[in-house]
């Protein structure tokens, strides 16, 4: 029997080596695998290269990993945000390396790694600083830059539900980078709100087939969900509203 579920987030991140390249899903806080990141911090791996759209928000999740001094380099599209003070401080102090990639090129480079594409010509970034030093070519009257795949040793992502084969479904815009990062890492580790029986996910609606997934850990529902239904009463960071009926 195939069973990719593991009992705890500690088991889920076991074996992650110092110096690894790790993709972390999420767009801002949506879809960020906070429980896995916390486990990664506790696990202790350092000298990491992180691939994420952002560079952490507030003091939790990815920001906490950065604050713990574990990250050598970050590959992302949008590090500077109103609440990215942890990254900002490290960057200004010269304590972290940044590779800035336009968001669509970031997504396509991750997909390319998962799809076995050696490189591709993208129209995004042509003629800008972010294309400097890159090979350029005109095809059919349009200019393109050559972009290479981004692959990773590990992907840490968050999904709504998963089964023991690793089939996944996501929720709303928390889907974002999860499905492509799952394809681009040697080992893909997924936190789900809930594991479900094999066969209970409709094969028409599986977003990430289990072939891309190595470990699945259930971490319980988000605060804004109850019995699978949306109940609200939280702010955009998922904190309970004052006076909300919890």
């Amino acid at each position, binding site marked *: 029997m195939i069973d990719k579920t593991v009992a705890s987030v500690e088991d889920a991140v076991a074996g992650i080596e110092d110096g690894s390249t790790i993709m972390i899903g999420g767009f801002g806080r949506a879809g960020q695998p906070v429980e896995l990141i916390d486990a990664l911090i506790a696990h202790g791996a350092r000298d990491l290269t992180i691939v994420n759209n952002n560079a952490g928000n507030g003091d939790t999740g990815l920001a906490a990993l950065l604050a713990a001094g574990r990250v050598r380099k970050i590959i992302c599209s949008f590090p500077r945000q109103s609440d990215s003070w942890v990254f900002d401080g490290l960057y200004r102090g010269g304590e972290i390396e940044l590779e*800035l990639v336009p968001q669509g090129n970031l997504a396509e480079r991750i997909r390319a790694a998962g799809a076995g594409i050696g490189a591709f010509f*993208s129209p*995004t970034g042509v*003629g800008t600083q972010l294309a400097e030093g890159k090979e350029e070519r005109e095809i059919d009257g349009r200019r393109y830059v050559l972009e290479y795949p981004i692959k990773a040793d590990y992907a840490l992502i968050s999904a709504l539900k998963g089964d023991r084969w690793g089939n996944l479904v996501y929720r709303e815009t928390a889907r974002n980078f999860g499905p492509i990062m799952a394809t681009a890492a040697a080992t893909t580790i997924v936190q789900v709100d809930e594991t479900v029986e094999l066969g209970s996910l409709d094969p028409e609606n599986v977003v990430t087939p289990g072939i891309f997934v190595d470990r699945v850990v259930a971490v319980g529902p988000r605060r804004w969900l109850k019995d699978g239904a949306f109940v*609200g009463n939280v702010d955009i960071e998922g904190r309970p509203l004052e006076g909300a009926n919890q």
Partner: protein
Amino acid sequence: MTTRISRDDLAARIAADIAEGSYVNLGIGAPTLVANFLPADQEIILHTENGLLGMGEAPPADRIDPDLINAGKQPVTAQPGAAYFHHADSFAMMRGGHLDVCVLGAFQVSQTGDLANWSTGAPGAIPAVGGAMDLAIGAKQVFVMTDLLTKQGESKLVAECSYPLTGVGCVTRVYTDHAVFDVTEDGFRVRELFGDNTIEGLEELTGLTLQDQTEERQ
């Protein structure tokens, strides 16, 4: 003498140019206002690059869903007929030229349609590009929404951008608080003047030679 329209009026002006049935991406910041002026009796489908077509308005405070946000990481809703997809599919949609319109802010737009809106190039600033470069090249029509002048009174319409570029030759039209400009092979053409603005007055403000297209449209 009135030479500037309000930001809301500008948003309404842009909204009026978006046809029913259009697929539209509204950039972070001021362009988001355009959504408030899209006619309620028409169907215009909003795309947000973090994976949703058919984005609806903001929810009430107790119905905020942290899993359902826009590219500015603000809470939104999904309309009947919406669809979710992952980031590679979302940017394929943009890069592949499937959006009809995107509306973006700008630091500068050059008369050849170059856009600068992601970095002032100031030393020490932390760079962040997000989806700006993908949006700039990724819609059939790229509208810019901006004040004509900076707070220091410098024209944002320029012969050549001095700020780092977001995209080359990508802007099709610029909606400013003074006038609406089309980007053409002959440079900026004034499409519509707001208030008491004149072509000559705008030429003085921008330091550019402008084509007059206002009559043709009447």
